[in-house]
């Protein structure tokens, strides 16, 4: 609730007799007007001055002597780190972290520009690896979300450069991001940071598959390894956040298979050798199941339905039916879990998944058999009915829930058998 909201709404509360004027004043005093930490105008002014300086330098860059170029780069690097530390000490963490992030970006720019200056940019990525290392170290020191995001993005960018320009995968970069930021995630599982980390690592995994010219389905082995790591994370929310991107990728793949899988043309793109692929995926599954067991999260096991290797089936009707069954089963499992945990967000997601599966099924299976107008009429009625039913269930569930149910954060209610016994112990 913003202070502005309080300012505009609270007089109405007093007139309605909800609170007294004295209470209103106390409420307002409780949420003081945020004093702007730094006036906006000076910031804008300094940005403009900075931009003008930057454009002067950029325009004359080629004409500057080498030493001056180097001095400019290093001066701005040290300057922005120094300014960042200064603002942090002054108690302005946002600006401080932003300036330290700027310093990190300037470090990368300095490496690239210096290498170009001396014609050293070749196929050597060790220079850019130092950039990732610096990002990991700064994230550790400052524990700032911005720096974490920046480091993950820098890792993905360096890897993209390696693959695109040099045609090789930098395992060191991948290991640095996965190990360095993975440890950070393990200790400080923050929802946004976890999702970004997972997305960045998935990007690198995708690049690895491209470089190795492997079948694209191999992508799901590292992706699900990430998922399994989420199972072992003691913090359930942080683990789930890391599992989001791999699950989205798996779902999109299964969806694509259900939608476009009727031709067999993809066979040589998707089908890796059966035994190695299933062996690798099975090993990851075992790891994931062990994690779920250790943390008491078996309720999320049906996520793995999306990884069923349906693409080994011959294309056409068998594959279409199999993928649809999987999509339905997965949507059903999400709905059932949401129902059990009385989680409205999950219920919405489950309903959307269910409707999507129905749409795919309908378009895949009935298009050929029905007159077009009847097709659309029936489909519309089917979807309307389905959404009405799911919404009713949703409302029923929410109405049946205890009035002040805060499922995610509150102490485990007796109706929630799946909450982790391990985390409950210290509270008792």
């Amino acid at each position, binding site marked *: 609730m913003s202070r502005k909201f309080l300012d505009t709404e609270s007089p109405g509360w007093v007139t309605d007799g909800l609170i007294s004027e004295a209470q209103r004043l106390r409420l307002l005093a409780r949420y003081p007007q945020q004093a702007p930490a730094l006036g906006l105008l000076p910031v804008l002014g300094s940005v403009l001055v900075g931009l003008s300086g930057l454009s002067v330098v950029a325009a004359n860059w080629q004409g500057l002597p080498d030493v001056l170029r180097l001095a400019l780069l290093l001066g701005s*690097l*040290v300057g922005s780190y120094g300014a960042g530390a200064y603002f942090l000490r002054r108690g302005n963490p946002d600006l401080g972290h932003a300036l330290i992030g700027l310093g990190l970006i300037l470090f990368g720019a300095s490496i690239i520009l*210096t290498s*170009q200056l001396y*014609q050293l*940019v070749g196929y*050597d990525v060790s220079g850019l690896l130092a950039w990732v290392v610096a990002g990991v170290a700064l994230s550790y*020191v400052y524990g700032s979300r911005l720096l974490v995001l920046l480091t993950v993005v820098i890792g993905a960018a360096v890897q993209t450069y390696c693959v695109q320009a040099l045609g090789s995968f930098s395992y060191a970069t991948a290991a640095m991001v996965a190990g360095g930021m993975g440890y950070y995630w393990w200790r400080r599982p923050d929802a946004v940071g976890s999702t970004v980390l997972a997305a960045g690592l998935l990007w690198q995994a995708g690049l690895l598959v491209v470089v190795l010219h492997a079948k694209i389905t191999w992508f799901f082995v590292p992706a699900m390894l990430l998922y399994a790591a989420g199972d072992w994370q003691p913090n359930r929310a942080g683990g789930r956040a890391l599992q989001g991107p791999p699950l989205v990728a798996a779902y999109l793949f299964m969806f694509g298979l259900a939608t476009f899988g009727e031709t067999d043309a993809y066979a040589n793109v998707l089908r890796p050798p059966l035994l190695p692929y299933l062996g690798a995926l099975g090993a990851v599954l075992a790891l994931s199941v062990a994690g779920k067991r250790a943390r008491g999260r078996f309720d999320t096991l049906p996520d793995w339905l999306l990884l069923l290797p349906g693409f080994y089936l011959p294309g056409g009707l068998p594959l279409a039916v199999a993928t649809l069954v999987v999509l339905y089963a997965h949507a059903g499992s999400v709905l059932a879990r949401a129902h059990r945990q009385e989680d409205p967000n999950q219920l919405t997601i489950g309903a959307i998944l269910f409707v999507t599966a129905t749409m795919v099924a309908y378009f895949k299976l009935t298009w050929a058999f029905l007159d077009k107008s009847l097709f659309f009429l029936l489909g519309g009625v089917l979807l309307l009915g389905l959404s009405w039913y799911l919404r009713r269930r949703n409302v029923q569930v929410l109405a049946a829930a205890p009035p002040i149910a805060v499922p995610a954060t509150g102490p485990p209610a007796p109706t929630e058998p799946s909450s982790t016994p391990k985390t409950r112990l210290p509270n008792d």
Partner: protein
Amino acid sequence: MTDLLTWFADPARRRPLLRLLVAAQVLYVLGVAGAGYATAALGQHIILTTSPVDPRDLLYGDFVRLRYNIGEAPLSQWKDAAPPRRRQGVFVLLAPGPDSVSTTVGIYPSAPAAGPNQAVLRGWVTNVYRNSFALRFNLERYYVPEGSGLRLEKAGRLHPLRVRVSIAPWGQARIARVDDPVKTPKPRR
């Protein structure tokens, strides 16, 4: 067991750690620059020629793509029993000809002893064909001062360019200069 993150994020350590990190970054950039200087100052200088390149392929924004004549060699120049493999690191023994342009004497899997006048250039196998194989040297990009890139592109399309390369005693190589065959004075600001 102390947590690594807690150790790093300790406010008392923050200042010295930042100083250390910034100093390391500055030193690293200076090291890159120093390696560049040293390669030119201490290194051995050779001249290589390029072959004309597909013009669409030559200029990538701020750099020119160079294709060296020594970048493709017949398998007869390969001095090892086992055939070359892709991505293998190799050593190219070069000797200058009468026009002072260096050409390949032989290509070795490990560093050969260079005679007087000869130079050894590091390379990597990019492709192996039936009778020949292709190499790259990390010298395929030349970052050009603004404006002169187009001239090089035109020149490179028609004539071979002469590229002056410095090879440091520790093996690092870099382009010192690309001679522009069209002799026009360089624009100075």
